């Protein structure tokens, strides 16, 4: 109990004092997570729409696979990306291992299945009457897509929030690809992991509180948008 209270106090102090190291860690976290979510969104939503509105063989299987990949372990993504990004791997020339770019690469891959899957679920949940109506009104393909995305916007936004949450809270990919380099690839989760392993539970807790606060703020903003 005492430890928890000290942790909260410490978190507050660190935030109020704008501790430069904590600030760097937080900014790195935000940069990597936001970029991953942005790229992930740009890939997942069109992908989800394409899968939903196209008929092809193996569609159900594909959707099942995507849903299975919701449970894709972060360390597996970390391991595969490590092997791909290593200088001795196929994308070694990018020199992305142990850099923020590599972490964005990994996290994007990590969140695509869940964001695409939830997009598919969102679009499938649209009342078929609406779909028929839009069709019968002679909508062009683009209009058709736009109107559906608008219909499903709340659920799609939820998909983005889930992707964001998975990206900001994961530690496996971040530590394996990023290497937890101070000032460079150290993010909130890897810093928490490090500080815990060093027995600095209070600092860990403080960093955890900052992470949760960020998640809360993002969710509030998104919730505000949804309620409009």
């Amino acid at each position: 109990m005492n430890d928890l209270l000290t942790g909260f106090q410490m978190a507050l102090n660190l935030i109020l004092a704008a501790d430069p190291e904590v600030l760097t860690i937080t900014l790195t976290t935000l940069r990597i997570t936001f970029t991953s979510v942005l790229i992930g969104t740009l890939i997942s939503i069109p992908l989800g729409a394409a899968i939903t509105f196209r008929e092809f063989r193996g569609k159900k299987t594909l959707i099942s696979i995507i849903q299975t990949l919701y449970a894709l372990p972060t360390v597996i993504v970390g391991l595969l990306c490590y092997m791909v990004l290593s200088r001795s791997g196929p994308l070694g020339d990018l020199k992305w291992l142990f850099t923020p770019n590599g972490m964005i690469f990994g996290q994007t891959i990590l969140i695509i299945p869940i964001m695409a899957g939830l997009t598919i679920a969102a679009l499938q949940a649209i009342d078929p009457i609406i779909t028929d109506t839009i069709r019968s009104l002679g909508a062009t393909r683009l209009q058709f897509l736009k109107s559906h995305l608008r219909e499903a916007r709340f659920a799609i936004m939820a998909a983005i929030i889930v992707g964001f949450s998975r990206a900001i809270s994961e530690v496996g990919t971040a530590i394996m690809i990023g290497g937890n380099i101070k000032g460079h690839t150290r993010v909130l989760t890897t810093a928490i992991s490090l500080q815990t392993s060093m027995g600095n539970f209070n600092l860990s807790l403080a960093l955890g509180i900052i992470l949760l606060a960020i998640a809360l703020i993002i969710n509030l903003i998104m919730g505000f948008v949804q309620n409009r």
Partner: protein
Amino acid sequence: MIGKLSFGIIALVLGAMLFCGAVSAEKVESLGEHGADRLLIATTTSLDATKLLDLLEEKFKKETGVTVEHVAVGTGQALEIARNCDADIVMVHDRVAEDKFIDEGFGVDRRVFGYNYFLLVGPKNDPAKVAGLNGTAAFMAIEKATAEDPSVIFVSRGDNSGTHSREKLLWKWGGYDYADINSSEWYREAGAGMGQTLTMADELQGYTLTDSASWGTYESNLSLVPLVENDEKFLNVYAVMRVNDEKCPDVNTEMAKKWINFMISDEVQDILQTYGVEKNGVPYFNPGRGSADVMGVTDEETKDPVV
């Protein structure tokens, strides 16, 4: 209308995200991301946990303008990272593994820059009565005690780090087959770094092998006590070498050589002499300069600059 408003807000949020990303990107990139002026070290954890590398990297940056960064992992993993050409330098402490790395043609220009000692730490009540024994005898005493006393536990790094290698050697020197030890009930393989292993040993009130630098760093959070120290079998020698550019053409050889020479320079050796004394009583790492005999290496390996 409502649609437009929410689109506006979404655009605003995305804009803020990008801005945030751009600002921190600038910050991160100023730390150097591009080949020539970034040197990556794969290092053993103790050099990181004591914050020694942070200090040295800062000094090196001031002198050469080169950004040096490190990933802190066990010695085994550090060498593995280097084998994949993902680091320019390795800083490790496992002679056998280092020799193998050099023989394979990956490691070149090995220099020895410092040493300290491993120590066996354990619970205050010392159920296996190892205090005062020599290194090998202490390990044997632990194994014997486990037969009678189920509270005797040994926690191992279990991660192929330099410390884990030495621990395996100590079992071997005691006449055991490591496979037997490893499958024993009282032997707990943490598969973790030094800090975490110490914390685990503390929670389980078990014995574990650690190095004096890590011990000095973590000691204050632990109830364990040092039981066997300064044993000749516990000598712990730290080496630096660069990754061979014939195996890995992309490595930054020129700067890697500068870093090695920096490590054996008087400037760094003087820092080692005093680093940690204030907190720990003794230096975390004794300078390698002039101690070739103690460390069992050649004089050249401690002082000859690489060219």
